[in-house]
């Protein structure tokens, strides 16, 4: 039997059973194909507020669904399923389960900000995409993306010492993302540095690698930064209903 409006049926909603008896009637085989309803049965009234509480999501309530963001979107041009306008609507109306279906696409935003310039309501859709990706991660719906992991290592080091030491960032990043340290590009770069860098600079780099110096008088700045970051984290976790404990 042909199925009308097949495009509206999601493959995961089609249920088949090789052997099935309903009310004493054998409905195995052809007749055991059922379609799960795709009806929205409730709204999550907290969803918009949660996204709005994360950096970038503050202006989501301004959206009037014109679609300028999706029309201007770099990623949408190659993947029509990447649709910021649609996700903003789902978030505003609280259709959480619909949003979660796209959890593996939302992070793909390349932050080109064409939507930011196209948006007539100053929603800053790029920021909303960022906030939504963070929301998915904080709620445990998606694993931390490599870029989030990199940002964390980078920020941790800046806060700890007031400066960064590239080799340790790269080592930690490769380790936490499960990649081998001996990468061809890394070996080539190290070899190039050894051959071409002036001796004085090489010495300073080596010393920095070994002793990891801090910016002079950093401890006060560090304490202030740590306090601020913790406060932001606490505020976000509270807004997302994740309790007041420190992040893992």
């Amino acid at each position, binding site marked *: 039997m042909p199925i009308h409006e097949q495009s509206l049926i999601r493959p995961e909603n089609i249920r088949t059973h090789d052997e099935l008896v309903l009310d004493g009637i054998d409905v195995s085989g052809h007749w055991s194909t059922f379609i799960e309803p*795709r009806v929205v*049965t409730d709204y999550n009234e907290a969803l918009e507020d949660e996204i709005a509480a994360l950096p970038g999501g503050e202006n989501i309530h301004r959206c009037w669904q014109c679609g300028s963001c999706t029309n201007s979107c770099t990623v949408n041009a190659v993947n029509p399923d990447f649709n910021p306008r*649609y996700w903003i609507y789902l978030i505003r109306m609280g259709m959480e389960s619909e949003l979660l279906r796209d959890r593996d696409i939302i992070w793909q935003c390349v932050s080109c900000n064409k939507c930011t310039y196209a948006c007539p309501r100053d929603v800053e859709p790029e920021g909303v995409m960022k906030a939504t990706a963070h929301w998915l991660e904080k709620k445990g719906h998606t694993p931390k993306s490599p870029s989030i992991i990199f940002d964390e290592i980078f920020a941790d080091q800046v806060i700890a010492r007031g400066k960064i030491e590239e080799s340790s960032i790269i080592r930690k990043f490769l380790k936490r993302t499960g990649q081998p340290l001996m990468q061809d590009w890394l070996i080539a770069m190290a070899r190039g540095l050894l051959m071409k860098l002036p001796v004085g600079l090489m010495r300073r780099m080596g010393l920095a690698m070994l002793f990891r110096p801090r910016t002079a008088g950093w401890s006060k700045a560090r304490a202030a930064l740590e306090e601020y970051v913790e406060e932001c984290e606490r505020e976000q976790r509270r807004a997302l209903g994740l309790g007041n404990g420190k992040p893992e």
Partner: protein
Amino acid sequence: MTGPVLVVGGGPAGLAAAEALSGVGRNAVLVEKEDRLGGAPILSGYAKLVPTGEWAKDAIGGMAARVEADAAVDVRTGCTVKEFGGEPGAFTATLSDGSTVEAPAAILCTGFTHFDSVNKPEWGFGSFPDVVTTTQVEQMISSGQGVRCPSDGRTPKRVAILLCVGSRDRQIGREWCSKICCTVSANIAMEIREELPDCHVYIYYMDIRTFGLYETSYYWRSQEEFKVKYIKARIAEVTSDGERLIVKGEDTLVKRPITIPFDMVVHAIGMDPNVDNLLLSSIFGVELEPHGNIARQSAYGGMGRTSRPGVFVAGAATGPETIDDSIAQANAAAIAALGAGRAATGPKAARKAA
């Protein structure tokens, strides 16, 4: 031209017409079929008015009090016009109490009738007590009782407002947009959120027509300050699971059917032509336009003229209208009535005569 101008209808337009006539030293006879003045805002118990947020009983009630105290206005409540004849400058109206009024001109401010929601049975009005109209919510607010579910008096946790109930609907012969309901609904939604901060309000719409400056002060203010949600869906039916109302429809922006529970459903009812318009048309000898409202002869020059010289019209008698525009039209009609049947004077007229 001498004698009082006959004003029919004591709502915002009629009150404004009488006040305008009195203001330029002309007497008026104001005929109102109900036992008190004020029209729909008073008789139907509206709460806070668009756009100023003043209470109807202060704003329109104030107009009524001024007219009642005005020596130049002869107020006849509980009274209708039975017969109307004569020529511009010399009309005679016979009233239901048997008296007659000699008037050089008449202004019809006979208003509209609220759409009766029982004509849309699929949306549950009349079947479920917690399905109410915008007018009923206005009454809950203006009476001080507050917004409560009529079935058991509980405070609603979630309210749906359905737009275009009795408007833009060929199915029931009402093809017009009632013009005010989007803004009124946004206003009511904000009042509900103000009274009940824990109650979520959803507005189901086809298009939003909070025209002109209401875009910011109602459409966006309701979303940005009061977190009212607007969902693009024409509701198919309102049923009940025995405890709460179930609203079914399709969210057209996500191509997804919806079946959502609500505590209260509010019909944003439209403005019908006054149910008495056929009678008024035959008594006053004025034509109706195709929707059944009193037809205006011109939109530009001679505002407020009907098909009958000397008889003018203002306000929602001409079609869905806001209160402030009704009042403006009444002032225009009063000016037109003053000039009716009066020979022009002044230098240009003198040149013409010579």
